[in-house]
């Protein structure tokens, strides 16, 4: 059930898109509202249990190996946030319907809003750190889209980008912090983590982890010095601001602090970091708010300031401070949402948000003005309104800290009062500047009362302000109690929610703030002059400069590394591989193992000598290309001999055929590539490359030596040797592995071959270079097709085909099989093209090689599917023995059909590749395909 609370909006996000496109605005409002109401109803339905103190949990494993699970919990804190998110969300949905203009795409707006709501709900309900982070990032992303909703406006795009950059960077820090926390606590499940508070706080990694997590929380909650993105996010449509900056997005940071309070809080580091940051933010933003001329700008800075207040309260760490903080979360959400909405109405009705022009609106919109003034009074902390209660609790806590904490802390109540004065002053400015203070100046239009539905959400919220302010214990009391309990993680000390606590220090501070604020506003002209001379620093310019610097640096780095030269990339790649290898070798360990080694015989030594000679000459003479091909043939032959020597006849046969095919291929290409190339690089470059190459060679030689001098783990070989005959029905283990045990790999390899052949066809179709006219004809003859060759090649075809058939059939038991037979057949066919007239040969053979390889691949797949038909896994093989009169005992294995497929693929692909190059050869003589 819990899962659905978050899932409903996430899935429901599709509905308004569908409805908006097809049915019009009203349908999309009602679907969105219905989706939200469904989530809210679910929450309310589950809430009675939570009020009884039970923590609801739900659990679906997702990636348990990584500690990532779909686990959700509904405790007091989650319930409080859930109600705020869905409740205010519902009001915002209604408000946005009348706020957004006809030309705005309402479907998209609601879809994004629901996406964001679902992400927020998922975050507050998550019971797994990684899941929480996932939703956290989703809120960053969806808020980016919401802030940039009017994407044709440059300021909206910039604001959205800035919000995303700052919050996503914080998210990255948070990820690191969470990974550390999960590592320290031994689990990513919140239930476990919350219980591991003592372990975590005493761990040496605690300071680093705390700072990383705080970085995430502070960027999200716009704490100083990361606050600068929030005022620029005001480019969003006002419903978005009302939603994101009152109840949701920016509250995510303080939510996280509250959520992890039992694990992280109550240390000196926490006190100074969280409390200090909160205090600075509270003061700085309250001061800056006073100097904003933009209506929404004032509200933005006041939001930052109030977030600072909540952070400070959480930083103080006492249970009562937590109660005050949670209380202020509720109150701020309510009055700030209504204030944003009221500001939106004024903007909507007048087309202006500049407080220097907006004056005396009271007589045009008296009812809206009354509502806005009430909300602003709540923000200022006027008695009988909700803001007064939590602010008074805040003052009480500062006094308590001062009493308990020695000399330094007497500053705290003083600064709190100063912040209160500022807060009253900017609230007074909001009220007086907008609704009184003379007549409006040059407004685009004079306002009227808005349509009742636009005003209704504000009315609801202001009513809550009043209800909570007058009778707190009966309205918000229980919710506050369970929320604070789950933050503190234990029973709360006694406290009373009441307006009147008698004459005491907090009341004095409240009165001082009210009077001081009024005085300060009265003297505002002097203050504004001061503000103009020393304007509050603008984070935006700094941010942009930092961003540009970062982009320039990365661009320089990229351009330095990536200059477009493939040679350079390869050299870098090999260099890095070498460094990695050397670093690995540095760890120590014995190079030579303890395996006894057989002596070397003279003939092997001689063959090795020949290999050294041919390899060395290939390398040295690589620019004389024809010679290099001949020498490469020599290298290949000796490798074939090595394969024979080391008991791998299958490999020898394959290598031999491939060797010849490669020679033919290189010769075909040589006609189109300059034959005797000039040296293309400087001696210094050649020296560098030689150095790299020699080091690579030494590395590989050392690796080989190390491997060869150690005993082999024989399990795998023994398994295949033992099961080959009973399991696969073949005595040639290599072939059985290929067509049976690892048949799926072979299928993949056959596919690669086909893809290569098709790729070559695609590369060379219509893009063939001109032949090199000066190609060497060392001993020129005029006869095109020498008689001896022509006549000799034909019986060779028959002979080779026969041999290929033999090799193919016996492949399961003796060296051979589809690969080798296919290569041999291809060679025999290529010889025909070589010896005779290309045109004549093509006509005589009349083979469609592309179809051949396609058919082969299909046959392989079909063989696999047949076994699936009989209920066995894909590519299971079966075999049986049959007795034929003349041939004797005969074995029929399904692997045979598989091998036939391999055979066809090899023949088709190799011939396709050779002819693709050879065709151009023939076309020079007027041949047309």
């Amino acid at each position: 059930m819990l899962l659905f609370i978050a899932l409903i909006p996430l899935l429901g996000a599709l509905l308004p898109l569908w409805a908006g496109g097809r049915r019009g605005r009203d349908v999309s409002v009602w679907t969105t509202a219905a989706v939200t109401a469904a989530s809210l109803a679910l929450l309310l339905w589950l809430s009675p249990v939570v009020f009884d103190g039970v923590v609801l949990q739900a659990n679906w494993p997702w990636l348990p190996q990584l500690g990532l699970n779909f686990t959700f919990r509904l405790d007091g804190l989650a319930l409080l946030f859930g109600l705020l998110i869905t409740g205010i969300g519902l009001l915002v949905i209604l408000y946005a319907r009348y706020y957004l203009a006809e030309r705005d795409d309402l479907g998209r707006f609601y879809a994004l809003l629901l996406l964001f709501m679902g992400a927020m709900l998922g975050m507050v309900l998550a019971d797994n750190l990684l899941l929480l982070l996932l939703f956290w990032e989703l809120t960053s992303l969806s808020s980016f889209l919401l802030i940039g909703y009017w994407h044709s406006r440059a300021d909206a795009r910039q604001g959205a980008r800035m919000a995303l950059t700052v919050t996503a960077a914080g998210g990255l820090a948070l990820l690191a912090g969470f990974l550390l926390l999960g590592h320290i606590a031994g689990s990513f499940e919140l239930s476990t983590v919350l219980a591991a508070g003592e372990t975590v706080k005493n761990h040496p990694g605690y300071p680093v982890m705390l700072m990383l997590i705080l970085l995430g929380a502070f960027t999200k909650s716009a704490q100083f010095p990361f606050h600068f993105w929030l005022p620029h996010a005001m480019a969003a449509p006002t419903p978005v601001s009302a939603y994101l900056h009152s109840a949701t997005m920016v509250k995510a940071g303080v939510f996280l602090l509250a959520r992890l309070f039992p694990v992280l809080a109550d240390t000196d580091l926490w006190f100074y970091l969280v409390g200090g940051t909160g205090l600075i933010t509270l003061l700085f933003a309250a001061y800056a708010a006073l100097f904003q001329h933009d209506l929404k700008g004032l509200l933005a800075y006041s939001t930052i300031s109030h977030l600072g207040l909540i952070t400070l309260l959480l930083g103080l760490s006492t249970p009562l401070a937590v109660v005050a903080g949670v209380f202020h979360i509720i109150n701020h959400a309510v009055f700030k949402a209504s204030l944003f909405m009221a500001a939106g109405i004024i903007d909507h009705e007048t087309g202006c948000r500049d407080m220097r022009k907006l004056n005396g609106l009271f007589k045009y919109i008296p009812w809206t003005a009354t509502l806005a003034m009430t909300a602003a009074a709540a923000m200022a902390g006027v008695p009988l309104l909700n803001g007064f209660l939590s602010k008074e609790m805040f003052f009480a806590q500062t006094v308590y800290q001062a009493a308990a904490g020695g000399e330094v802390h007497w500053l705290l109540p003083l600064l709190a009062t100063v912040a209160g004065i500022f807060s009253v002053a900017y609230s007074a400015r909001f009220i007086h500047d907008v609704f009184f203070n003379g007549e409006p100046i040059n407004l685009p239009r004079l306002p009227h009362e808005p349509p009742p539905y636009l005003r209704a959400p504000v009315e609801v919220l202001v009513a809550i302000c009043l209800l909570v302010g007058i009778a707190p214990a009966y309205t918000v009391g229980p919710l506050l109690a369970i929320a604070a309990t789950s933050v503190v993680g234990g029973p709360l000390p006694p406290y009373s929610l009441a307006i009147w606590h008698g004459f005491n220090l907090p009341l004095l501070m409240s009165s001082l703030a009210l009077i001081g604020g009024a005085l300060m506003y009265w003297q505002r002209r002097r203050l504004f002059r001061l503000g103009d001379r020393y304007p509050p620093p603008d984070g935006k310019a700094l941010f942009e400069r930092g961003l540009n610097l970062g982009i320039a640096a990365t661009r320089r780095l990229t351009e330095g590394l990536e200059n477009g030269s493939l040679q350079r990339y390869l050299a870098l790649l090999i260099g890095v591989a070498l460094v990695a290898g050397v670093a690995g070798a540095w760890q120590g360990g014995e190079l030579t193992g303890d395996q006894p080694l057989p002596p070397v015989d003279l003939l092997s030594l001689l063959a090795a000598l020949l290999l050294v000679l041919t390899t060395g000459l290939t390398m040295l003479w690589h620019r004389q290309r024809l010679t290099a091909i001949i020498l490469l043939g020599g290298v290949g032959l000796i490798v074939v001999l090595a394969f024979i020597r080391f008991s791998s006849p299958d490999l020898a046969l394959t290598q031999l055929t491939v060797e010849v095919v490669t020679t033919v291929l290189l010769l075909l290409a040589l006609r189109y590539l300059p034959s005797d190339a000039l040296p293309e690089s400087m001696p210094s470059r050649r020296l560098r490359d030689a150095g790299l190459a020699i080091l690579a060679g030494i590395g590989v030689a050392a690796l080989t030596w190390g491997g060869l001098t150690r005993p082999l783990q024989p399990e795998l070989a023994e398994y295949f040797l033992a099961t080959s005959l009973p399991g696969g029905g073949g005595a040639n283990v290599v072939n059985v592995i290929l067509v049976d045990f690892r048949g799926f790999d072979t299928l993949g390899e056959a596919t690669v071959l086909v893809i290569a052949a098709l790729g070559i066809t695609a590369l060379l179709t219509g893009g063939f270079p001109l032949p090199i006219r000066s190609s060497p004809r060392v001993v020129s003859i005029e006869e095109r097709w020498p008689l001896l060759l022509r006549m000799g090649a034909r019986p060779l075809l028959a002979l080779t085909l026969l041999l290929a058939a033999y090799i193919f059939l016996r492949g399961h038991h003796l060296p051979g099989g589809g690969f080798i037979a296919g290569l041999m057949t291809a060679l025999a066919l290529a010889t025909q093209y070589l010896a005779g007239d290309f045109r004549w040969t093509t006509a005589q053979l009349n083979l469609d090689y592309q179809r051949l390889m396609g058919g082969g691949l299909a046959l392989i797949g079909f063989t696999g599917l047949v076994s699936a038909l009989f209920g066995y896994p894909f590519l299971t093989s079966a075999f049986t023995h049959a007795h034929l009169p003349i041939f004797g005992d005969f074995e029929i294995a399904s692997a045979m059909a598989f091998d036939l497929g391999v055979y066809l693929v090899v023949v088709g692909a190799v011939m396709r590749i050779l002819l693709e190059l050879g065709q151009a050869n023939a076309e020079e003589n007027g041949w047309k395909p």
Partner: protein
Amino acid sequence: MLNLAVTLAFTLLGVALLLTGWRLWYGPTTPDRILALDTLYLNAVALLVLTGIRFASALYFEAALFIALLGFISTVALCRFVQRGQLFE
């Protein structure tokens, strides 16, 4: 008697390999090198046959047969390239 013959043949084959290698290196013309490669194939055939006799295994004879058959094709291709400048006409 057979042992002695085989040992002698191995020794001579070793010398042949060395000489082929020298021809491959020294050249001096491309046809010389093509011939050297062809000879190398022949040497390999001889080597395998001898090894087969030494170890009394039929496996080597087969490999020798293949090399004899296929080595020829690469010589043909090389010769065609040298003589005509292209393989398929």
